């Protein structure tokens, strides 16, 4: 035991006597670590370049408006992402309406109301494990529940509503976990002050806890939203369509597709007919939407971390 430090000490003394430059293994190690980040950065640049160098010229040549307003088609030169964009936007709205209130309510219950009993612990374990379930398994649940199961009359089978509800369930655990963290970060003394002034639990939550936890809750839910909208795998199992008419704004019980889904379909189409250009352009649109949502979330979080 005592030999090891002595060795190290001797090491350093020797190095110091030889001058700073002797620490070669330290430098090698440091650059090795840095190269890991470098690899990630290089891949990221390659990915964005691979997509952007094809997609952006195509978009500017065809016109962004044209690409965003055209329907799906079997011909690449007229195929557009209107239905996919509408699908993604409406799924986002469904997630906001369904998953956010439910998730925040669950988090509030767990953090503010629940006593530490078996029921509470069961919810906590379940939520934590739900967050680790692969996205495609949620697709099976969506298929069994909304698209081909008991709630079929309500959702209209393989519909936009089924897709939105499936994604809402996928996002729910993320919303709960991040909201619970934000609520936990509110100082205890603030609550005690509220109780001391005679407020009920709900009044303390409404006037003290929620306003203080809101930035954190918003960040978590926004990042969850981006995650949900980027998923394509569950939609494959609940019948997203390749070509179809309709898909207008508000047609919740009709056929659907989304930006990630249309990308997965177009990627596999023959490259000789110009599909790579369309696919790259669709990815540019998707990245603008998803990274845009993420950027809002990250900016909010940084603001939140600074003020805390």
């Amino acid at each position, binding site marked *: 035991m005592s030999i090891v430090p002595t060795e190290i000490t001797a090491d350093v003394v020797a190095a110091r006597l030889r001058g700073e430059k002797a620490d070669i293994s330290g430098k090698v190690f440091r650059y090795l670590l840095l190269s890991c980040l470098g690899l990630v950065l290089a891949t990221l640049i390659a990915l964005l370049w691979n997509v952007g160098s094809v997609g952006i010229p195509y978009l500017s040549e065809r016109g962004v408006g044209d690409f965003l307003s055209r329907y799906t088609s079997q011909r690449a030169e007229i195929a557009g992402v209107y239905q996919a964009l509408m699908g993604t936007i409406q799924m986002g709205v469904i997630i906001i309406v369904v998953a956010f209130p439910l998730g925040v309510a669950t988090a509030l219950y767990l953090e503010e109301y629940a006593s530490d009993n078996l029921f509470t612990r069961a919810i906590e374990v379940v939520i934590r494990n739900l967050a*680790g379930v*692969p996205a495609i398994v949620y697709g099976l649940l969506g298929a069994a529940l909304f698209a081909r199961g008991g709630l079929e009359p309500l959702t209209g089978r393989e519909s936009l509503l089924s897709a939105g509800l499936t994604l809402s369930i996928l996002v729910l655990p993320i919303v709960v976990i991040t909201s619970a963290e934000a609520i936990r970060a509110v100082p205890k003394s603030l609550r005690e002050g509220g109780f001391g002034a005679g407020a009920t639990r709900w009044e303390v939550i409404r006037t003290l806890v929620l306003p203080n936890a809101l930035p954190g809750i918003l960040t978590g839910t926004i990042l969850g939203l981006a995650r949900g909208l980027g998923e394509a795998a569950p939609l494959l*199992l609940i019948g997203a369509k390749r070509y179809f008419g309709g898909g207008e704004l508000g047609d919740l019980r009709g056929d659907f597709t989304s930006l990630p889904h249309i990308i*997965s379909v177009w990627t596999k189409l023959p490259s000789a007919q110009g599909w790579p250009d369309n696919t790259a352009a669709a990815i540019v649109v998707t990245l603008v939407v998803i990274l845009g949502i993420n950027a809002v979330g990250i900016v909010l979080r940084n603001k939140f971390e600074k003020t805390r």
Partner: protein
Amino acid sequence: MSNVTGQTPGPVTLADLSRSDGRTAVDAAVGKTLAAAGVLAIVISLLIVFSLLRDSIGFITAIDLGDLTGDVWRPRSQSYGMLAPLSGTLWVTLVATLLAAPVGLGAAIYLSEYAKPRVRRILKPIIEVLASIPSVVVGYFAFRFIAPEITQRIFEDSPRFNLLVAGLGVGLLCIPLMTSVSEDALRAVPQAMREASYGIGARKVTTVVRVVVPAAISGLVAGIILTVSRAVGETMVVFLAGGGTPTVASKPTDGGITITSAMTGVLTGSDQQAGGPEYQSVFFLGLVLFLMTLALNLVAARFVRRVRITY
């Protein structure tokens, strides 16, 4: 003062102190509503397990159990050889973990131990941007870049799309997870341990390798397990770039399917009706996938808890 009549005031009772203006009633109602939302989480997980079990049992009773040990997975012609998706999952997960674990860990060590706060603020977004790129976009990247520009140049004789291509794409997706879990574990190591190490004259590299990393080892192992779990469950990259050959893959450069990509095969596109072994086979695959990832996540959670207990 108000006692003008001269009567002595009665003792304060519980009724005087408790609120009777309806605010407590609101409070109780809100509590019940919030609890109902919590119940929903339990209901959802029960529904997941129930729907998986129901159709899996239907599937197992409908087919000959010996069929599962076959080596071709083609539900349309009643071939349910599980060795095909299992071998594919194994290769993809292996390749992905071999890429994501060292790279993710290296990035985490740099961010936690070496980068100054200002540098960290510039470097961290690299990982965050990668984390927010949808998996289908990485699938496209594997399809259009990794396959033609990297793997095809090294392995010229293998099929263009194979499990190695898919594994590299999946690995890319797993890096941010590995980095964030590892970084949390490294930052949880008390500063005093580093200072003690410096105090006896250890160099930075010695401190990191012999003190910080061993102290954080539980969290790092958890990161690797979660990476494996994520890789097992990843769908879109394999769907696009895995090759789709429904047979057993003996090496990573073979085309193949994974549990997840096999699940997309049956229900995609067609207006498939519920029922029948072909439809139910997807739920059986889903159950296998669910159990695998659940087991991995539970083990990882145990490791993470050990970090919390130690510090």
